[in-house]
């Protein structure tokens, strides 16, 4: 038994990292021009939004829940922001300032709504968040009439295009958020509560953990981070499209969390693993593109990886 458990520990700790290393080595050998700074830049800027959403998802999953609404919340925030900084009745500075704050708070509020459904009415998270997965994109389409909005506002677009010290802003933001959430899990009471709820909710409640408040908070945080990611996506593209922003993001985020070694049943968490998981998914997509493999095949490969991740989790539990 002891031997088995130590092997499990190794796989759980380093499995994702090994997979990432294998992918990098593969590309170093077989993909031309892989080893340069620009490749790093491209992959990190493309993965940033997935990671930001996935860190929130990590917290949610750590409590044993799941959040399907993240992509739709991105679309809502992406739809609201241009309405603020393009609004001519607002002074430009105020418009941009509000565009950073209000859409993110709105997404956060929708996140709280998810949490409310789950705690107040004890609805299964997958169903409760399915509500906004469907309705959220609808809301974003309604406020924009489903139309694409294009713009050019470099103050706002700093969030997706700014390069302080030559480093892309959204990548710095991504690392900061990963570090913050990892710290929260490791060093705060709140982090302990999250893990306690995911491990055994009934026991946590009996030992005085404020289960409802903690759950509300994790869904709220997931909403806030989704809102932020929505802003980054529209800033990079100089355009907001309610039909496209955040599409399939929930799948990428859940896959990143699962591949990264966080137990989907809750109670076990690995925030840095989520970062690694997202990088693996990103690098697979990059590799297939660089090798000229069609997009459709890339989707299948992604699915196979999720299956492998979930399977390996089952093995660990049994």
């Amino acid at each position, binding site marked *: 038994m002891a031997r088995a458990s130590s092997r499990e520990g190794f796989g759980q700790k380093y499995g994702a990292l090994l997979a990432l290393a294998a992918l990098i080595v593969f590309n170093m050998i077989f993909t031309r021009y892989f080893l340069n700074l620009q490749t790093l830049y491209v992959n990190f800027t493309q993965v940033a939004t997935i990671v930001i959403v996935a860190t929130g998802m990590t917290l949610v999953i750590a409590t044993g829940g799941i959040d399907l609404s993240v992509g739709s919340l991105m679309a809502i925030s992406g739809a609201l922001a241009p309405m603020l900084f393009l609004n001519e009745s607002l002074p430009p500075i105020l418009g941009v300032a509000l565009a950073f704050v209000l859409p993110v708070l709105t997404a956060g509020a929708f996140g709280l709504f998810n949490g409310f459904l789950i705690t107040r009415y004890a609805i299964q998270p997958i169903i409760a968040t399915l509500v906004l997965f469907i309705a959220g994109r609808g809301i974003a389409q309604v406020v924009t009439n489903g139309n694409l909005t294009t713009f050019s506002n470099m103050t706002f677009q700093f969030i997706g295009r700014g390069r302080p010290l030559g480093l892309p802003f959204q990548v710095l933001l991504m690392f900061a958020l990963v570090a913050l959430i990892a710290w929260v899990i490791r060093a705060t009471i709140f982090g302990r509560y999250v893990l306690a709820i995911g491990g055994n909710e009934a026991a946590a409640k009996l030992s005085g953990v404020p289960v409802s408040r903690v759950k509300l908070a994790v869904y709220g945080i997931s909403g806030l981070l989704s809102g932020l990611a929505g802003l980054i996506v529209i800033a990079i593209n100089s355009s907001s*499209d309610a039909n496209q922003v955040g599409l399939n993001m929930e799948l990428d985020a859940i896959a990143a969390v699962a591949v990264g070694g966080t137990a989907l049943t809750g109670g076990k968490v690995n925030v840095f693993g989520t970062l690694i998981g997202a990088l693996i998914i990103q690098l697979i997509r990059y590799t297939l593109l660089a090798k*000229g493999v069609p997009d*459709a095949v890339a989707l299948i490969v992604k699915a196979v990886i999720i299956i492998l991740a979930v399977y390996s989790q089952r093995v660990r539990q049994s």
Partner: protein
Amino acid sequence: MKRFIPIALAALAFSALAADAGLPKLAKKATYKIGFAQTETNNPWRLALTASMQGEAKKRGWKLVYTNGNGSAAKQVSDVDSLIAQKVDAIFLSPREEKPLAPAVLKAKKAGIPVFVIDRNVDQSIAKAGRDYVTFIGSDFILEGQRAADWLIKATKGTAKIIELEGSLGSSPANDRKTGFDERIKGTPGLEIVASQTGNFTRDEGRQVMEALLQAHPDVTAVYAHNDEMALGAITALEAAGKVPGKDVIIVSIDGEKDALQAIIDGKLGATVECNPRFGPKAMTAMVDYANGKKIAIKLTNDDRFFDISNAKASLASSY
């Protein structure tokens, strides 16, 4: 089982009869209630198409029932069902993909509603123009691809390594723009397509795909995008990689939207072949002609302009 056979035979005979029957007739009326099944509205081209249809219907005092497929062929099929249920006089369909929407055309025919297919066509082996629907009105996508190729051959003096950003897989503009372009550059041995991937006609995917392809093929000197939105995404990707679009990498695309003309004026985009989105007048005139019993050609082709640095500024005000 025995009782089933005659029913099956009758059904078979009936469906054969229905298939043989000609196009549904359209009555002459002072005003019409028409249906317009749009594909999606995620780019300025689509918005201009919708505006043109709604504007023309309003001008004629007709009622227009508008549906938006939101980028899903399945949604669009049910949109057509709902237009049939609402008993519109005629349906203008801009199908998302060739195969999935062809049965919807047959369904409308069965319900006695004439269909005008606009912009993209449906699969001719399932639903045929002139037999199952009145006509196809649109641009010649193959010609668009050829014109883009001709410009690129000239602009690069016949030597280039090209990245091609394709439209949505399976859609007729993506298929035909690829065919037209790829065939045309075959005659010029100095031109080579080093990579060809889909960017789904959207700016975001065009950018991400371009970023990745640019890393794998840093020696690329030209980009051919199947629409302007992807070309604009590619420009963002090139700038992020420290290249100068228009100088290091020459870009040609199709559509002729306002942002693209601005990019031409800024020297970033080389040229764009217009794909005229203003279908309203032509489409509804064709419908009135059909009601009047005139013979309608099975294909009506739009006249498309061509934009480069010589006329971009002058055309900016009239673009969408």
